[in-house]
């Protein structure tokens, strides 16, 4: 308990200090609970998520960083490795490949990398995975782009 809180506080201070270090990631700690975080990440360029801003929710376990945080998309996203309804993410470093040397920041970077490089063979979203597996990259991209526009575009005005 103490170790995880201390570690999260380190990450918090680092985030405050390096606010502009990574313009694609904006990590925010909950006002009242250091084990709850949210992040806004920018959709990577040259992907159907380009131009979108996606919100992630972190629930950090007490055994952190020996155990990985639970992360899910709050923003709807059409991606083979993200559950369309719950936002659950299938990513090895959030499961068996977790290392305590990872941080919330580096998890965000890994998720951005996953958005650019989907793994259609371990799909949480079968429709999306099937499009890619059948070679219909266009179909996948247009669906993904549509949802980016519908759900992840910053409100104008």
């Amino acid at each position, binding site marked *: 308990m103490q170790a995880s809180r201390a*570690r999260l506080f*380190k990450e918090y201070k*680092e985030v405050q200090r390096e606010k502009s270090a990574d313009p694609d990631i904006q990590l925010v700690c909950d006002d009242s609970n250091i084990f709850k975080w949210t992040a806004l990440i920018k959709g990577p360029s040259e992907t159907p998520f380009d131009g979108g801003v996606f919100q992630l929710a972190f629930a950090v376990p007490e*055994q952190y*960083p*020996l155990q990985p945080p639970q992360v899910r998309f709050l923003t709807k996203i059409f991606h083979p490795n993200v559950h369309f309804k719950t936002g659950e993410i299938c990513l090895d470093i959030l499961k068996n490949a977790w*290392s*305590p040397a990872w941080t919330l920041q580096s998890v965000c970077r890994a998720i951005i990398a996953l958005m650019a490089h989907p793994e259609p063979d371990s799909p949480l979203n079968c429709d999306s995975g099937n499009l890619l597996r059948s070679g219909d990259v266009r179909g996948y991209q247009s669906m993904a782009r549509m949802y980016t526009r519908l759900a992840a575009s910053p409100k104008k005005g």
Partner: protein
Amino acid sequence: MESDEDNMVDANDVESVDDDIYSGELEDDYYYSEADGDGGGEDGGGDDEDGPGYDFMAEAADDLVEDSLYWRQQQSYSILKEDDINQRQDDAITRVSTVLSIPKVDATILLRHYNWSVSKVHDEWFADEDGVRSTVGLLDRPAVHVSDVRELTCGICFEFFPRSRIVSAACGHPFCNSCWSGYINASVNDGPGCLALRCPDPSCRAAVGLDMVNMLASDEEKEKYARYLLRSYVEDNRKTKWCPAPGCECAVDFAGGAGNFDVSCLCSYSFCWSCTEEAHRPVDCGTVSKWILKNSAESENMNWILANSKPCPKCKRPIEKNQGCMHMTCTPPCKFEFCWLCLGSWSEHGERTGGFYACNRYEAAKQEGAYDEAEKRREMAKNSLERYTHYYERWASNQTSRQKALADLQQMQNVHLAKLSDIHCTPESQLKFITDAWLQIVECRRVLKWTYAYGFYLPDHEQGKRQFFEYLQGEAESGLERLHQCAEKELQQFLTPEADRPLKEFEEFRTKLAGLTSVTKNYFENLVRALENGLVDVDSNGSSSRAAGSKDTGGSKGRAGRGKANVKTGRNSDD
């Protein structure tokens, strides 16, 4: 002195058993071969017509000396206790460490990665040391160079520490003591994957070995890690397996050898090394797994078979089976004696009538008259279930009988032997023949049980084989019944307090039981070998060749194949 007991059964003893209790040709065959094994010539009358070694038993007995040697050479396994396992593991580690000139910790990591095969480690290492090093994470130089500073940041908690409180694997990635402890303990508690632990840095593959675990883990986790390492030696090693008996902590090291996979653990459990089911000679692993699958598929249909009571075929009162042998006697006043398996009258079970013990044989119900298609199908379905039921019931009964015999053996060793010793003023060491008999019964019940799975899968069209098989099985069944009954029932009369019978009677009992044990043992050993050879000595239309080879004009004797599988069929139906 005790070993003399084993050899006490000579031809004369056997003969006296023969004279006392048995008459009739079937028994002569049994005893004839036994005597023949001892040089022959002393058999009681009536056997001469057989000539030397002309039946299954005698022929097999000739081979016995040779074959037991053969099997012993094949039987290349050893049972390892925990100390032995540790010893072997240490030896392997030391060898690799010496030959490769690497620390023992690294040798352990290598061996575990290559499933504890010393030769595989050597081969891989000398073919491509760099490749092996990078695969298993044995770095020969640090991945990061830590400059000469007084304080370092731990890569997990991000706190600053003096160098003295920072620990690294060979790679040099710095983590503090308490983060290492947390990391290692968590990994150990996650399971045996901890044996392949790597540096916490995600980009680093440096191995974390036993030295760091012992330095940094807490006691409980050190203990667990050591367990996993020991288990890995047994479970990941292609040559070793745990004994599957519950509570047994021995492992079996199997060095190979064709055909025979049965091993006997120190805990007395016998199992098949290949499939780890209970020992199942003479049937092969494939048949066993088919049979077990079949049993579980049919288990609902078969529940009633496991019930322990059946109506007496004569008076219809339910009779409970509380003994191991199949010879049932109804309660007074009925006292009808019948066979548990076929519910036939016991007096018609072969020996007295000179008939053929046949309740092991399945005969499909005769189809009579014209059936329409639907009726025929129903009949076939019924027959196939009936056929399975027949084999299953006999398989299960022998299983139950075996359990009972095991319990009786225990009871014998714990209670009755001491009692017998007192009553008959005989040292317990001289009562070993009783224990031997029970051990033999347990083993024979096991073999007999599996012959029913064998029979179930024996192709129907191989008529000759089937008949020969059923003959052998019938003989085995009736021989074992005799032994079982003798050990179970005849022994009782010597156990009662007023049993101060003349010593002579007890000595006669000894001779009889020891003789039956020895004869049954030989018979079953030969049966096992004959079935394992797939009854090759019988051609599939064996009936004709048997008739042709018969020396006996009466047609009650027959030869099959090349003489090895000679049987006296006792049936003339197809001769």
